[in-house]
C-alpha cells in the first residue's frame, strides 16, 4: 500500500500490507523446509473419500484379482507414488492378487518400483505369475482400455518379460476387465481415471469396483464421478496420507515403515504451508482494514 502523508505514521498493521514480499518468501521457505528437516508428521483424519477407497478394497473377497494401473510419470510421482505404495501394500495384505499395468510410458518403471520397494519388501512370500503379474505399458491411450473391456489377451499378448498370458496362472483366465474384482487407476491426467470411468466402468457398470488416485490439479475433473462411478478416490498427497493412516492402522509393518509414510511426511510441509497461506490471507485483510480505517491510501 502507498503510505500516506499527513495524519501521522500509519499503524504497524497498516504497514504490514505493503511488506517486502521477501519476508513472505522466507516464511514459505521455512514452512516447507522445517517440517522436512524435523520430520514433522501430523495425524490425519481420514475423510469420506479415503475411507470409501479403503472400504472398497476391503469389501472385495480375499484372494480376488485386482488391477492397478500406473497412469502417471515421474513428474507426478511426488504426489502419487505414496498412495500407490500404500495401495499395493493394502491389496497384498488383504490377500488380493495384483495385476500391474500402465497407460503412461514411464508408469511401468514406477510400478516396478512399487513392486520392489513395497510388495516384495513387506510380502516376500509372493510369487510372480500366481500372486502378481506386471503387464507393463501399452500405447493407445483410451484405446487400450476399450479393448481390455472386451478382450484383455488381445491387448496384452504377453507380460513385460514376454511370457504369454496363458502361461501365467493369475491372468490365464482373465478375459475382460469384468473378470477383475477391482480396478484402481492412479492417474495424473490423460489418459487416466476419467478414461477408465468412460470406457471400462460404463461398459460393465456392475462387474467390478473402480477406485482412483488423483493429483490435486485434475481433481475437479474427476469429482463428478464420485461416488456413483468411482467407488473411492484419493485426492493428492492428502488423500494418500489419510489412506496411509487407514492401511497402517489395520496392516502395520515392522521395519521400513517409512515407505508407507511418504504421504504423511509430505503432508507436514503441506499443513504448515497451507496454514501460512490462510494466515497470510487473514493478515492481508487485517492490514487493508487497518489502513482504511486510518484514512490512508486505498
Amino acid at each position, binding site marked *: 500500500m502507498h503510505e500516506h502523508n499527513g495524519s501521522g505514521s500509519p499503524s504497524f498493521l497498516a504497514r504490514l500490507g505493503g511488506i517486502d*514480499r521477501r519476508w*513472505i*518468501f522466507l*516464511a*514459505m*521457505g521455512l514452512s*516447507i523446509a522445517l517440517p522436512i528437516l524435523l520430520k514433522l508428521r*501430523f*495425524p*490425519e*483424519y*481420514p*475423510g*469420506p*473419500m479415503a475411507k470409501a477407497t479403503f472400504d472398497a478394497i476391503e469389501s472385495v473377497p480375499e484372494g480376488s484379482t485386482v488391477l492397478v494401473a500406473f497412469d502417471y510419470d515421474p513428474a507426478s510421482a511426488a504426489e502419487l507414488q505414496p498412495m500407490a505404495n500404500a495401495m499395493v501394500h493394502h491389496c497384498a495384505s488383504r490377500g488380493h492378487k495384483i495385476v500391474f499395468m500402465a497407460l503412461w510410458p514411464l508408469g511401468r518403471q514406477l510400478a516396478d518400483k512399487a513392486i520392489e520397494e513395497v510388495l516384495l519388501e513387506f510380502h516376500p512370500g509372493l510369487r510372480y505369475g500366481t500372486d502378481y503379474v506386471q503387464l507393463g505399458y501399452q500405447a493407445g491411450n483410451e484405446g487400450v482400455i476399450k479393448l481390455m473391456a472386451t478382450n484383455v489377451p488381445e491387448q496384452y499378448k504377453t507380460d513385460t518379460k514376454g511370457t504369454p498370458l496363458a502361461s501365467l496362472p493369475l491372468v490365464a483366465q482373465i478375459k475382460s476387465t469384468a473378470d477383475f474384482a477391482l480396478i484402481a487407476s492412479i492417474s495424473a491426467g490423460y489418459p487416466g481415471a476419467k478414461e477408465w470411468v468412460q470406457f471400462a466402468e460404463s461398459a460393465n457398470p456392475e462387474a467390478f469396483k473402480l477406485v482412483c488416485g488423483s493429483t*490435486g490439479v485434475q*481433481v*475437479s475433473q474427476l*469429482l*463428478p464421478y464420485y461416488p456413483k462411478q468411482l467407488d473411492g478416490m484419493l485426492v*493428492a498427497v*492428502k488423500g494418500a496420507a489419510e489412506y496411509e493412516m487407514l492401511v497402517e492402522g489395520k496392516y502395520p509393518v515392522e521395519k521400513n515403515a517409512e515407505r508407507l509414510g511418504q504421504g504423511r511426511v509430505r*503432508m507436514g510441509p*503441506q*499443513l504448515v*504451508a*497451507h*496454514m*501460512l*497461506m*490462510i494466515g*497470510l*490471507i487473514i*493478515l*492481508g*485483510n487485517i492490514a*487493508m482494514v487497518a489502513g482504511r480505517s486510518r484514512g490512508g491510501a486505498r
Partner: protein
Amino acid sequence: MLQRTIPIAILSLSGIILMLAYFSPLTTSWGETVLGWFNVLAAVAFVLGAGNLLRVNLERISAQRSGWAYSAITLVSFFAMLAFGLLKLGAVPSEKHPDKHFAGAYEGPTAPYGWMYEYVLSPLTATMFAMLAFYVASAAFRAFRAKNTESILLLGTAFIILIAQTAAGMFLTGWIPQDSVFAFLRFDSMKIAITEYIQTAGMRAITIGIALGVAATSLRLILGVDKSYLSKS
C-alpha cells in the same frame, strides 16, 4: 501477389483440407500427410530458433554490451549440449548394431547428453517450477483482499478449499455427522459442493465460450478476414 495472395490461398487450402479430412474418410490420409509436413516444419523451426539465438548473443558479445559474459555462457552451454546430442558423443552403443556409432543411445545417464539432462537441465527447470510455491503465497497475500463482492467470493472460496485440503478441515468440522442436517457445514462437504456444482459449471461455460472463440477465429483465418500475420511490406 507473392506476398499476400499466395499465402492466403495456402492458408485457406490447408485449413479446408484438414476440415474435410475429419469428416470424409476418403480424405483422411491427406490430412495425415499435411500433419506429417507440419511436424517436420516444427523440427526445422528449432534450427531457426537456434540461428536467432546465435545472432542475438553473438551481437551482444561482439558489441561487448552489458552482460555479454552471460551471452558467452549461453553459447558455450548451447554448443556443448548440441555436440553431445548431434554427434552422440559418449553414447551407449546399440546392442544390435554396436558397429554403428549413430545408432547408439545418447539419452542414458552415462552419456554426457543424458548427464547434462539429469544434473543440469532438470534441476534448473524443476526449481523454476518450484518457485511457484513462493509466488502463490505472495499472490494470495496481496490479491485476496475483501474489497467487493467479487473479491470476497474469490478469497472466501480459496479460503475454504485451502482449509479443506489439510487436516485442519477435518479437525475443525469433522465431528459433524455425515448424515445430519448440518453436514453441509463440513469443510469436505463444502469443497465437494463447490467443485462439483459451481466450479464445474463455471469451467463448462468458459470452455464453451473458448470453443466458440476458437471456431470463429479459425474461420476468420480460413476465410482470409484476419490477415494480421501478413506484413504490409
